[in-house]
C-alpha cells in the first residue's frame, strides 16, 4: 500500500480512538469541572464579541439583499420571514461555528501543540493524568454546551440586524418584521438550528485537540498544527452542514 494511504488510515484510526476515549471520559472519573468552566468562559464568553458582530452584519446584509429580491414580486413585507429562516436554519449555525473554529479550534491546537512539543503532555502522563481526560474532554464538553448557546445569540442578533436595516434603511413596517420572522419559524428549523452547532462542536473540539496532540517538530510544528486544525474544522463544517440540511429537508418533504 502506498505510504500516504497508510498515513491517512493511521490518522483516521488515531482520530477515532481520540473521539472514543474523549466521549467515554465524559462518564468516567476524575471530572475536571474547573477546566470545563474555564473553557466555557474562554470559548463562550470569549467568542461573544466576534459572534455578535458577525451575527448582526449577516442579518443586516441578508435583509438588504432579500428586500431587493422580494421587491420584484412585491413581497418586501416578507423580509422578516426570509431573514429568520436563513439565519436560524443555516447562517447562524454555520457562521458561528466557523468563527469559533477559527478562534478556538486553532487555539486548542496551538495550546495543546505547545504542550506536546515541550513534553508537558508526556509529563502529564508520567505524573498520573490522562491527557485526554484532562485536556480534550473538558474542551469537548465546553464546546458542546456553549456553541448552541452562541448560535442562539447569533440568530437573535442577526434577526435584530435585519430589523435595523428593514425599519431604519428600507422604511418597512417594524412590528410586521418581527411578526413575520416569528411566524416563519417551525420546530424543524429550531431543531436543525440547534443540532447543527452541537455536531459542529464535536468537530471543532476534536479536530483542534487532535492536531494539537499530533504536533511535532518544535514551534514550526505548532504553527502547522494550528493552521491544519482551522482549515480541517472549517471544511468539515461546510461538508456536514450540507448533509444535515439534506436530512432535515428530506424530513420536511416526506412529512408534508
Amino acid at each position, binding site marked *: 500500500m502506498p505510504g500516504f494511504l497508510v498515513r491517512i488510515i493511521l490518522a483516521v484510526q488515531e482520530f477515532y480512538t481520540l473521539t472514543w476515549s474523549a466521549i467515554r471520559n465524559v462518564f468516567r472519573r476524575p471530572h475536571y469541572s474547573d477546566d470545563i468552566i474555564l473553557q466555557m468562559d474562554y470559548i463562550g464568553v470569549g467568542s461573544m464579541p466576534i459572534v455578535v458582530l458577525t451575527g448582526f452584519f449577516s442579518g443586516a446584509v441578508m435583509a438588504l439583499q432579500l428586500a431587493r429580491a422580494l421587491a420584484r414580486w412585491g413581497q418586501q413585507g416578507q423580509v422578516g420571514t426570509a431573514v429568520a429562516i436563513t439565519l436560524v436554519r443555516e447562517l447562524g449555525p454555520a457562521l458561528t461555528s466557523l468563527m469559533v473554529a477559527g478562534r478556538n479550534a486553532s487555539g486548542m491546537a496551538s495550546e495543546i501543540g*505547545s*504542550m506536546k512539543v515541550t*513534553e*508537558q503532555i*508526556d*509529563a*502529564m502522563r508520567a505524573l498520573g493524568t490522562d491527557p485526554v481526560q484532562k485536556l480534550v474532554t473538558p474542551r469537548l464538553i465546553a464546546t458542546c454546551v456553549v456553541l448552541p448557546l452562541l448560535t442562539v445569540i447569533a440568530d437573535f442578533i442577526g434577526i435584530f440586524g435585519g430589523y435595523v436595516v428593514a425599519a431604519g434603511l428600507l422604511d418597512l413596517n417594524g412590528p410586521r418584521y418581527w411578526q413575520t420572522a416569528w411566524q416563519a419559524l417551525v420546530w424543524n428549523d429550531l431543531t436543525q438550528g440547534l443540532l447543527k452547532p452541537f455536531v459542529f462542536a464535536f468537530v471543532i473540539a476534536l479536530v483542534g485537540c487532535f492536531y494539537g496532540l499530533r504536533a511535532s517538530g518544535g514551534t514550526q510544528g505548532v504553527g502547522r498544527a494550528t493552521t491544519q486544525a482551522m482549515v480541517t474544522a472549517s471544511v468539515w463544517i461546510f461538508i456536514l452542514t450540507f448533509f444535515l440540511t439534506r436530512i432535515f429537508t428530506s424530513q420536511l418533504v416526506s412529512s408534508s
Partner: protein
Amino acid sequence: MASGGAKSVVRFEQVTVSFDGAPALDDVSFEVFEGETRIILGAASSGKTVLLKTALGLVRPESGAVYLFGQNITHMTEQELFDIRSKVGMLFQESALFDSLTIKENVAYPLVNQKAIQCPLEDVDRRVKEALHFVELDQTLARFPSELSGGMRRRAAIARAVVTEPPLVLYDSPTAGLDPITAYTIMALVIKERDLANTTTLIVTHRFQDGLLTANFRYNPESGQLVPAHENGDPTRHRTKFIVMREAKIVFLGTQAELEAVTDSYISKFRRQGGG
C-alpha cells in the same frame, strides 16, 4: 551482575522501538539494580531520550519486553501504568513544567494527581515546601515557570520529580543548555537526591563530566557539599556504570575504567569532551 542479591528495578530485553519506520531503539538490553546509577551517553538522536520514555511506558516497544520493579510493563494499559509510574520520578529535557500552573502547583501536581501516592491534602503544602527547599528554591512558590531562569526551572522540575520520594529517578539531559556553574549545581542536586534517598538513578547526558561527577563524588550531609568517593570501600564507584548509545543501539556498557580503556573513536570522543 547483581550485587548482593539486589532487586532488579529496570530491565530491557531486546527492546526495539521505531518511529515511521526509522529505528529509535534497536535490540536494546540492559538491567539496573536497586541503588545503582547508569550514565547514558550518546550523540543527538542516538535514542537516549526514547530509552528513558520507554522505561516509563510513555513509548511502547514494537518488540522485546520492559520490566519495571520486576513487572512486565510492555502490554500494560495506561491506567495500570499510572500506578507503577508513581514509583518513578522523571526530569524531562526542557523541564516540562506546566506553564499555566505556579511552581507550587507544579510541584504539588504528582502528590494530588497520582492515586497510588495517597497524600493527605493537609500534607501537600508541607511536602511541596520540603521539596522546594531541597532544590533551594524556597522563594518561588507563587511564581510561574516563565518567570524563572533555565537553571531555576530545571531545579523546580527536579523538585517535582522527587516530591513523591520515588525509588527510581530518570533524568533526561539535566545539564543541557546550562552554563558550567549552573550545570554543576544541578548535578550536585542529582547526586544529593541519589545519596540521601538512595534512589536508583538513570541519567541521560551528552556531557562526560556529568558522568565523572556522578561516578566519583558523593554527597556529604554534614558539610552539604560533594566530596570525592574513596577509591576503596565507597560503593559509589561500583554502583555507577556507563552506557554509550549510537544510532539506536547500545555500543558500550561497563564501568568508568572499562570506558577509559576503549579505543573506539565514537566512544572515546565523549571521554575527550569531558577532559578525562
